[in-house]
């Protein structure tokens, strides 16, 4: 492995850690603009995380060690995921350690630990959130796998950096199967990151919460890690989307410092557009009742399966 590859790897994880809260801030700002509100500062998520780190932690008496371990595991899984997603370059040294199926597994680790932690205190809202989150998860996970399968059938590999690399190298073509899977992926992204229409990140009504309900008992540094991990998850999902559908701009292979330097502005541009798109989607759609969410997810799953069928029928 060349030095550039390791540099790419390091910068990518660093970029994920640093840019993730910014991306969240950008989405929130865009949403505020679209809704004719004054936008909060782009840096608000950073302030939130910093403030939480400086507080005394308060933990319920009925919490077990699992409750305190979970934020670290969730955060660790998200950082590990960021290490195998080609956000800036595809020549990652870790790319052979975990392919896209393992990536889905990493997200599953985070979800399972978060749900277990939510059940640990033994309050009504925690278990409610855990149950709903697992419900969203078991429908979103296979849909995401199907999306990845279509891309890996197109590129004969399941390693995400290689998928991106081969999609770039191939002559520019429109893949109908990828169009279907892009729809499915967007739906999965919305659901998995607790966005409207499945969940509302700004809600304060416990009965409609999913993601927030699971975090109700967390405070201070544990909450900070959970919030940061949530921002990382959104960032990771956005970067998976870039790798599968708009892989251009990332440095291919280990081409050198120049391509790597260019890949950062490309990533920022893609994130800016993606944030705007996400905010637009959230603004024009209404939150679904919880029991409509399975239908939403089933639609995503069927879109992904349709993409697979289209690929097998047309070979593209």
């Amino acid at each position, binding site marked *: 492995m060349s030095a550039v590859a390791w540099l790419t790897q390091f910068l990518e994880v660093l970029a994920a850690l640093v840019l993730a809260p910014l991306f969240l801030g950008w989405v929130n700002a865009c949403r505020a603009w679209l809704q004719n509100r004054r936008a909060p500062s782009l840096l608000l998520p950073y302030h939130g995380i910093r403030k939480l780190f400086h507080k005394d932690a308060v*933990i319920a008496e009925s919490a077990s060690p699992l409750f305190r371990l979970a934020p*670290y595991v969730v955060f660790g899984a998200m950082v590990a995921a960021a290490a195998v997603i080609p956000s800036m370059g595809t020549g990652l040294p870790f790319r052979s350690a975990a392919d896209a199926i393992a990536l889905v597994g990493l997200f599953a680790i985070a979800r399972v630990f978060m749900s277990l932690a939510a059940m640990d205190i*033994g309050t009504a809202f925690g278990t409610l959130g855990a149950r709903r989150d697992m419900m969203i998860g078991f429908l979103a996970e296979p849909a995401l796998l199907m999306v990845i399968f279509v891309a890996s059938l197109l590129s004969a590999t399941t390693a995400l950096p290689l998928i991106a690399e081969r999609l770039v190298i191939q002559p520019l073509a429109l893949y109908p199967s990828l169009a279907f899977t892009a729809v499915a992926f967007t739906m999965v992204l919305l659901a998995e990151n607790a966005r409207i229409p499945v969940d509302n990140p700004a809600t304060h009504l416990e009965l409609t919460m999913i993601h927030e309900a699971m975090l109700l008992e967390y405070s201070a540094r544990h909450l900070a890690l959970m919030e940061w991990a949530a921002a990382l998850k959104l960032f990771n999902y956005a970067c998976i989307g870039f790798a599968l559908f708009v892989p251009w701009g990332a440095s291919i292979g280990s081409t050198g410092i120049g391509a790597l330097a260019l890949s950062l502005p490309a990533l920022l541009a893609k994130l800016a557009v993606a944030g705007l798109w996400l905010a637009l989607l959230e603004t024009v759609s209404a939150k679904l009742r919880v029991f409509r969410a399975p239908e939403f997810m089933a639609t995503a799953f069927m879109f992904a399966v349709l993409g697979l069928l289209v690929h097998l029928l047309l070979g593209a």
Partner: protein
Amino acid sequence: MASIDSPLTISLALLACWAVVGAVGLLRPHSVALVGRVLFPLGAIIGVGLAIVAALSLTEPVEHATLYIGLPDLPMHARLDNLSRVFLALLGSASAGVSLFAAGYFRKGEGTAPGVMGLQYHLFLASMGFVLVADDAYAFMVAWETMALTSYFLVTAQHGIPEIRSAGFLYLLMAHVGAIAILLSFGILQGGTWLFSFDAMRQSTLSTPWATAAFLLALFGFGAKAGLLPLHVWLPEAHPAAPSPVSALMSGVMLKTAVYGVLRVTFDLIGDPLWWWGLVPLALGLATAIYGVVFAAVQTDMKRLLAYSSVENIGVLFTGIGLAIVFHGVGMTELAALALIAVLYHSINHAFMKSLLFLGTGAVLHATGERNLGRLGGLIHRMPWAAWLTLVGVLAIAGLPPLNGFVSEWLLLQTFLFSHEVPQPFVNMLLPLGAAIVALAAALAGYVMVKFFGIVFLGQPRESSLAVAHDVDGFEKAGLVWLAIGCVLLGLLPNQVIHALGAATEQLLGAAPNLAGQSWWMLAPLTERDVSYAPLVLLAVIVAVIAATFLIVRVVYRRPVRRVPTWDCGFGRLDPRMQDTAEGFGQPIRHIFVSFFDMERDLPSPLDHAPRYRVKVSDRFWKGVYLPIAALLSRAAKSVAWLQQGRISVYLTYSFITLVVLLAVML
């Protein structure tokens, strides 16, 4: 003929040792000290020995032996090849953990005397081992029936309880329906030679219809043992009835003998399965996987939940078998080998994970006397060892990297990614959709396991009696630790495991994944595609990130932690009853998969003085398949019963008529 120090002889000797160890218990059948503290640990050591002998002999040639036991002039044959070795290693290593746990588990005054229980238990182990080395239909069926009978007696250990007796009866019935089908299958396989040794069956050539019939009968027979849809109904009845170590053995190991049987008949005795046969186990396997996991999600009894989860895993295994047959039939031998590796790997994984989970429920059952999820909760505080070790099994069976359940799932999904290359129209488009179903089942397994662990071990105790629950003791702890370490190692060292399993696929299919020249920590089983997975690196990255985060947070932000009562929104005291119940946690699944269930619901009205909410979810197959068959049988029996008039003169008339008819035929 095998020599005295050959692996086959040693294996047979070890199996005999199990029987002897069991018999010794009869000397003092009521002594817990002898049976529990001496014999069960001895059984565990024999298990470890068997696993070592089997694993080390994987590179050696096939061995034969003739055993002069049984009927005169009808010797039994034994044979040790790599398929047998893989499953013997599974049997030995998984049962070692279960035996260790059982050493601390069986106590006085619970149903059958410990000594008798020990005898049944060790005979059960020995018969499972003998199933794996048997090399003729007689030996196989004798061992198979011994296995069924010993496990029947183990299931009905607490025979005072009527539910347990009826669960045992159902189990025995299904076992025998299956055994008849296997016997018929062997009857076809001998192909007119009337030689029932497996060697003769390998040599006989069958016409396609007969071979198909033999395959389908074997699939039915072994499927009944494994719990393939629609023959799964005995599993959720028998597993909760049995003592936990027995459930662990039945689910972890005995179901795998059925997988062994299907592989033996299909790839060895028939030899060249047609590709489209594979579609039958594939379709049934996918249906079983989804059905099992959906039912697991709505169970309220923790052992029933695990039993349905076993049904799911059997579905996944048969899906893999189906894929292997399809690939083998169309000449894609390398992929067939990979699918078969996934099956063998998952068999071993499931043996470890499911035994671990069943033993975890055993620990909970002993500590609290409760199997009902609705009365458990918060046990992680009182039983930390049991809880954290069970968590390993939970994460493994939920298919999370870097544990073992993920590896076999990964292999199976990778194999599915090639299924569109099968040169058969339509089929090549339908097969990849199977991957969607496998992925859905795997994700649902995560749901089930969060429910299982969260409700049993997390939250607040739902009953006040749980406050005195005690943790596992020495032997029980050792058994759980053994199985948990197995789950971790099988997950972290996939290359070594696959290399060993490759010996079996090499023998059966003539192909094995080419792992030569690869780093020992990196799994990349397909040469023509860039797919790889390195669990050790992944684990190292996650652990490094967690450790670094922990240190940084600790060093930079040294803020204290305060412990306070849970915030109750200002409404007064929180009650453990406010937590989600098992029914509540299963509610989304009942809602989404409503057509799967046969549901009865009693909803209270607002005017009720004593409101009662009740929901009963039962298997549709009971009403749809089993009860009609039972009704038909009893109607047939009633019509035959007309012959039984109860008067001697009538019976003498029957004899007279029979004689007249016989004379008429003879003359």
